[in-house]
């Protein structure tokens, strides 16, 4: 009669997706934020599209990281506030599984969504279409890694009143390698040189983070729940 790990995983993912789609405005906020920030750069710099292309990878990546971070704050917080996190923690499924399922769902509704709208932003910033594939692949890897780093930070800042600012403060320095490799991959794709090195590094970071971060995020949750 007990529930297997996969069933439990999909049940939690289903729950998270249900909750996200009941509040569509929260679903769109990070995307709109992403679009607004990338619109502000060309306006603030008033450059030609050709000159914009040089800074496009950096702008795109910084905006994507910030947008993805924006919604991380509520990853565990809303569940902690209404007490459902305690129910999840006592569900007999192990906290790590819950953490993995919640973080994957977070990536599905923010990271993957950012990847999907990135061609629009890319076009606005003058990124040529032949670079889109690399740009989207690097964004997918980068946002997944960031979701995991953010899960650790979100676990650590659950009970705090000004948690959102603190979350950015502790997660962004950890995310610098993502920005470096991600922007470099996009940059090289635009100029048409080999992107393999940067993509491999991003993939390695992603695998490394996905193996270690679940334990760290679980430990973080236990610290703040206890």
């Amino acid at each position, binding site marked *: *009669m*007990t*529930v297997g790990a996969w069933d*439990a995983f999909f*049940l*939690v993912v*289903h*729950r998270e997706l*249900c*909750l996200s789609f*009941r*509040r569509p405005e929260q679903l769109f906020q990070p995307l709109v934020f992403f679009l607004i920030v990338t619109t502000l750069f060309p306006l603030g710099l008033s450059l030609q599209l050709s000159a914009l292309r040089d800074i496009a990878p950096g702008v795109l990546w910084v905006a994507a990281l910030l947008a993805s971070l924006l919604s991380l704050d509520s990853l565990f917080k809303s569940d902690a506030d*209404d*007490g*459902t996190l*305690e*129910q*999840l*923690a*006592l*569900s*007999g*499924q*192990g906290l790590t599984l819950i953490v993995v399922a919640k973080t994957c769902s977070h990536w599905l509704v923010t990271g993957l969504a950012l990847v999907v709208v990135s061609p629009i932003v890319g076009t606005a910033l003058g990124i040529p279409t032949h670079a889109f594939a690399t740009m989207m692949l690097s964004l997918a890897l980068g946002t997944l890694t960031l979701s995991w780093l953010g899960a650790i930070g979100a676990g650590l800042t659950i009970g705090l009143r000004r948690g959102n600012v603190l979350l950015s403060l502790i997660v962004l320095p950890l995310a610098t390698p993502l920005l470096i490799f991600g922007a470099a991959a996009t940059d090289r794709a635009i100029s048409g040189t080999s992107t393999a090195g940067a993509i491999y590094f991003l993939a390695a970071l992603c695998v490394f983070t996905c193996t270690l971060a679940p334990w760290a995020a679980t430990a973080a949750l236990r610290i703040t*729940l*206890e």
Partner: protein
Amino acid sequence: MLQGVSIEVHPRELLHVSGPNGTGKTTLLRVMSGLLRPEQGSVTWRGQSIVQQRTEYQAVLAYAAHEPALKGDLTALENLHFSVGLKRRTSAAELHAALERAGVAACAELPARVLSAGQRRRVSLARVLAMQASVWLLDEPYANLDAAGSELVSELLQAHVEQGGLALVVAHRDLALHCQVRRLELNS
């Protein structure tokens, strides 16, 4: 907080924890559930520490905190589905039956945010029922309930204990039950 408390609860027994505010009643329940790790001492179940058998212990445990722990955006039935479903395989009919028993079958398809405080309490009781657990840890189950609701809680507790379960109940009021009730009075 909470020093020198030693309790033992057996099947077919109910422990009624009472005492003034701030004496650690909720803390005691959280320690018993394994949410809080005691600084000293331990919690054992069937002679083994619950830390070593977290999964097994949680499988037979139903914990209802002071707040009803419902997602406002999900319906009562979905709330039950997503939390009970992690513990055991259930069917919608079973969950419906639990809601029915708690007297909130009419609210099954309503989002939890539109329910009254008393209805939410009943939904959280339905969740405890649907978990079919042998260990109940209930924090103020009588809160926000009317006379009929209180009557229902007493009935449920009584039936649970008679079927061989055990329960720890934090409550301010006296429990008018016809089963074995031990009292633990906490004071500072």
